[in-house]
């Protein structure tokens, strides 16, 4: 019997730093909610909006798989591995912080905000060599089907990370449905609605709502309106 947990959009933590508005699905920085610590290996899902010309200054990370998915605008990334890149809507970036890195992220556009998802997954191995990966995705590959954008395998579709995790993006027209089969025994899926209305396992989800589902092999996803969503398939015990 599938187990589920519903996280309505309005129950997320929120930090407003003026230049940064961050909606946090799990405890992060000053937002601490013991009931919202993680979903399996998924530890952070921040829904961030960065003002024009602003950004995150140089700051460190270690032992975490960090994935950025821009939703609107361009974000400039610089890191201590000498990577300088701009990630834009349609891209995905993965970084294994491992033994330690520094990076910064800026919205260099003087007029427009940047909206992006910042996702942290616990690694399956500590102290790996830091690495950075970025990919431009074909948006057509998610229209009315699921597009794999992340996996544990360097040779598979999308970017890869040090964890038995898979991400899929979907952009479904109203009425389209599909069955999702969980990738690995013991994994669960955190389904996050980017916009529109979905039904998963009988639960109706609206924009920025999320449903965690585990102890099942598969589940049905139906778009009740035109909808975009992200499926995060992660180990529940790791």
């Amino acid at each position, binding site marked *: 019997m599938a187990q589920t947990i519903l996280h309505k959009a309005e129950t997320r933590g929120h930090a407003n730093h003026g230049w940064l508005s961050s909606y946090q699905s799990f405890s992060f920085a000053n937002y601490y909610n013991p009931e919202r610590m993680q979903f399996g290996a998924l530890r952070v899902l921040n829904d961030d909006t960065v003002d024009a010309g602003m950004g995150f200054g140089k700051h460190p990370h270690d032992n975490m798989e960090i994935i950025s998915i821009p939703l609107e605008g361009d974000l400039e990334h610089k890191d201590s591995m000498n990577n300088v890149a701009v990630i834009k809507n349609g891209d995905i970036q993965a970084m294994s912080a491992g033994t*330690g890195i520094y990076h910064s992220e800026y919205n260099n556009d003087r007029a427009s905000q940047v909206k992006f998802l910042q996702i942290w997954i616990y690694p399956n191995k500590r102290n790996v060599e830091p690495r950075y990966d970025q990919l431009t995705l074909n948006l057509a590959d998610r229209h009315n089907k699921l597009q794999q954008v992340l996996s544990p395998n360097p040779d598979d579709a999308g970017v890869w990370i040090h964890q038995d995790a898979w991400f899929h993006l979907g952009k479904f027209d109203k009425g389209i449905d599909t069955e999702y089969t969980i990738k690995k025994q013991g994994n669960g899926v955190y389904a996050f609605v980017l916009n529109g209305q979905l039904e998963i396992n009988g639960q109706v989800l609206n924009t920025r709502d999320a449903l965690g589902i585990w102890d099942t092999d598969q589940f049905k996803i139906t778009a009740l309106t035109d909808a975009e969503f992200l499926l995060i398939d992660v180990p529940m015990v790791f």
Partner: protein
Amino acid sequence: MIKIKTMNQTQILVIGRHPEILQTVVRLVNNNPEWKGTGCLTEQEAISVFDQQVFDLVLLGAGIDESSEDSLCAHFKARKPDIKIVQHYGGGSGLLSAEIYEALKSNQL
């Protein structure tokens, strides 16, 4: 040996191999007036500091190999069986406070 215990502050020993990240984590710990962080880059330094001061929590940061973690944990548990030891992830401000709150909460059970 007389051990130093500062009243009303939770004493947190942070161990990590990356000097800048260690410095950042200790600074972030010390941003909370109820917490006092002490940072150590090596096992020897950590053991020496632990033996001289009363700690409530140990955070194991990045770069410490498994065998060193095991020997450090064995030493700390032998000296203070109720010490809470957690592996710190993330290296910055994101998870730190929640990790500490969760560790201290379980300490109180």
